[in-house]
């Protein structure tokens, strides 16, 4: 539906996200929780996440932060590795998701945790932002695996993305905001 053009100033936020996987009956599943029934993206499933006060905290602290989060949900990850940042622009928020991934060491989580396969993830009601988060993960994976595979169009290592040449406009605006 038609939306007003975005001309208002946007807020910047940083959120830690962890994509936690577990093998259930030989199928890889991922831990997700449901958002509140009201408000932004109501009811949608999302990965476990925590909003940061500041982006300037060390990786080690970030990992501790996530481990605490997991523990609160009765989960324990074997090792958490950083995948990288994913930027998503909501109407008034420029959200930077700092994505981590890990495997479950023990526990299947409290009742709030839903274990979702890749297939289910694609079908379930989730937000575009979460889709980007999940995609960033599989991109890393596919890059790793691409050398094993036959050369295909999408994994052509000589073909850079257009993103490596043109920057998101929003960042420009961000700089402007910070300048002002």
């Amino acid at each position: 539906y038609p939306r007003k053009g975005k001309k208002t100033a946007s807020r910047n936020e940083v959120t830690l996200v962890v994509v936690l996987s577990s093998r259930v009956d030989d199928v890889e599943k991922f831990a997700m929780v449901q958002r509140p029934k009201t408000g932004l993206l109501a009811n949608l499933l999302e990965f476990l996440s925590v909003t940061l006060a500041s982006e300037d905290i060390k990786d080690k602290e970030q990992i501790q932060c996530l481990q605490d989060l997991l523990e609160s949900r009765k989960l324990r990850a074997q090792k958490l590795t950083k995948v990288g940042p994913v930027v998503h622009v909501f109407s008034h928020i420029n959200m930077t998701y700092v994505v981590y991934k890990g495997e479950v060491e023990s526990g299947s989580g409290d009742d709030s945790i839903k274990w979702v396969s890749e297939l289910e993830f694609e079908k379930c009601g989730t937000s575009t932002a979460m889709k980007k988060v999940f995609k960033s993960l599989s991109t890393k994976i596919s890059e790793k695996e691409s050398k094993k595979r036959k050369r295909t169009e999408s994994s052509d290592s000589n073909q850079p993305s257009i993103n490596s040449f043109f920057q998101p406009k929003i960042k420009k605006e961000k700089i402007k905001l910070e300048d002002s």
Partner: protein
Amino acid sequence: MFEARLVQGNLLKKVLESVKDLLRQATWDCSDTGIQLQAMDTSHVSLVSINLSSEGFDKFRCERQLSMGMNLESMAKILRCSSKDDIVTIRAEDQADTVSFIFEAPNHEKVSEYEMKLMNIEEEHLGIPDTDYAAIIKMPSVEFQRVVRDLSQFGDSVVISATKEGVQFSVRGDLGNGNIKLAQTANEDKEDEAVIIELQEPVTLTFAFRYLNMFTKATSLSSQVTLSMSPDIPLMVEYNIPKLGHIRYYLAPKIEDDD
């Protein structure tokens, strides 16, 4: 309310055919200056930028800026229901979640109206810097289409070299090698058929045929195409839509193999 009326409605059909293979869905941004679209293909290797100026329309009314996310395949399907001479009107209410396409026959005795649901697409817009390209090649769009179609049979990527004398397209493959040279046109009487090169320095870059092939779907929009190249930055392929605007494709160059 948004309303844009184009007597030469056929142009919109051609615009859609030009992008629907590259993009499954995209957002049309409407403002009082016209209609814009910017989107990357799903592999994020190329970028499409469409600009249709409000002045090119026979009637254009856009009270508030609005962004309309559309499934481009559906939109193309609808526009294909218009006849060659139909007058096309795009209309959307400010708060509505649908857009309407109205096709009127020139004699006004047939009026078709299609209503399509809008979708909410979250996508980042990229800033495209103004570039002073090292080489700008203007050539007949059908010639470019033919070159891409012919050479793409022999390999995955093409080397494009621009020199003072002309432009050269080369491909290497298992079946054989191909090489097409177009010389600068000496006699520029027929502007539409001319090959003209503005060169600051010679440039040689490699591109994937897959995307160039999809860009050439815009051939019917314009008799001429412009290829703008500089070392290590994306190629810009521009089709000018007379009086209405343009469609530009950007394609990241491939990194040359060392072997």
